[in-house]
């Protein structure tokens, strides 16, 4: 009905219902309903994220060895990657990145794109009959109409700037274990994508900004969770807890525990380097 991609209908239906629920029952404006929906999606994905955070922790613990590996094979990219992957396997490290959670978000994103694109045809007329007008489609009184393309109003450019900033930040936070060229590419791409995103409905950019900011927040919590001092034997601590604690643990309590246990200040980057030196 809504899209040529009929496969997405099972996702679009619930997304539309949720959006309407946030608007009707939650009493949120349409724009804030999008934000709420985005946050809901990310909360649903949280169990996966907690896993990723744990695996990132063990990655951090093994960083010196991995750096050494990378140094040894720095001229042969292929060989280096292979050795690195073997190392992950031997030490039972679960590299933070994995394709499934990413792919999981793609249908949601595409569905949301169609839901928002068709919003003024499929959803809004119903509400117009109930007395709503285009004026109800604003966001913070800045963006007049979240269904209009982002480049149709100056506020859209503000959203696009927010998108670029949040995208860059999330990339910076999430790609610490990546090699430099890949990272540079990922940092440049959002700028290139700006030209595509220009024509997207502002509401969709709003979704993208929200999800990026969530990623940034997650990244910041993750950084605090990174083991600052390894008092436990490295191998044991990296292996079992990551597997067994994950389903129970939530990021917040753990963050508190770490914050209480260690000195509150100092950027994690520096601490990481200190740890490396102490080991050698």
């Amino acid at each position, binding site marked *: 009905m809504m899209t040529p991609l009929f496969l997405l209908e099972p996702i679009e239906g619930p997304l539309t219902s949720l959006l309407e629920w946030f608007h009707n029952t939650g009493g949120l404006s349409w724009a804030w309903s999008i934000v709420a929906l985005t946050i809901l999606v990310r909360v649903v994905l949280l169990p996966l994220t907690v896993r990723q955070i744990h695996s990132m922790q063990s990655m951090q613990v093994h960083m010196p060895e991995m750096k050494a590996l990378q140094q040894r094979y720095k001229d042969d990219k292929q060989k280096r990657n292979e050795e690195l992957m073997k190392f992950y396997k031997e030490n039972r490290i679960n*590299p933070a990145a994995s394709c499934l959670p990413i792919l999981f978000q793609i249908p949601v994103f595409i569905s949301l794109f169609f839901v928002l694109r068709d919003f003024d045809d499929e959803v809004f007329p119903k509400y117009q009959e109930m007395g709503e007008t285009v004026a109800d489609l604003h966001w913070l009184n800045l963006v007049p109409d979240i269904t209009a393309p982002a480049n149709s109003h100056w506020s859209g450019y503000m959203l696009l700037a927010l998108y670029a900033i949040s995208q860059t930040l999330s990339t910076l936070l999430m790609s610490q274990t990546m090699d430099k060229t890949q990272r540079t590419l990922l940092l440049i791409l959002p700028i290139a994508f700006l030209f595509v995103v220009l024509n997207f409905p502002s509401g969709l950019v709003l979704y993208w900004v929200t999800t990026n900011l969530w990623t940034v927040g997650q990244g910041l919590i993750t950084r605090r969770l990174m083991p600052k001092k390894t008092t436990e034997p490295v191998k044991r601590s990296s292996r079992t807890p990551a597997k067994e604690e994950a389903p129970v643990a939530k990021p917040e309590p753990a963050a508190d525990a770490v914050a209480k246990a260690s000195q509150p200040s100092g950027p994690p980057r520096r601490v990481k380097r200190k740890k490396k030196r102490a080991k050698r």
Partner: protein
Amino acid sequence: MIARLPVYVGLGLVYAYRYTLGALAPASCKYHPSCSQYALDALRTHGLLRGSILAGWRILRCNPWSHGGVDYVDGQRLFR
């Protein structure tokens, strides 16, 4: 050439993913080669149907509960 057409469609889809949404997601794969590369290899060597199954199975394995590692299409044991 015409018999290979479905494969090219599959390859095109993977490339489309790579240059659009794949590039937007600030994360990479835990396997070597990456899932998209694996998909390309699988499609080239096993055709659209088997290649898609292999790629799909690989993506399912590329989850937060697996450990990643070196995994080439040649090493697959689904189709022998």
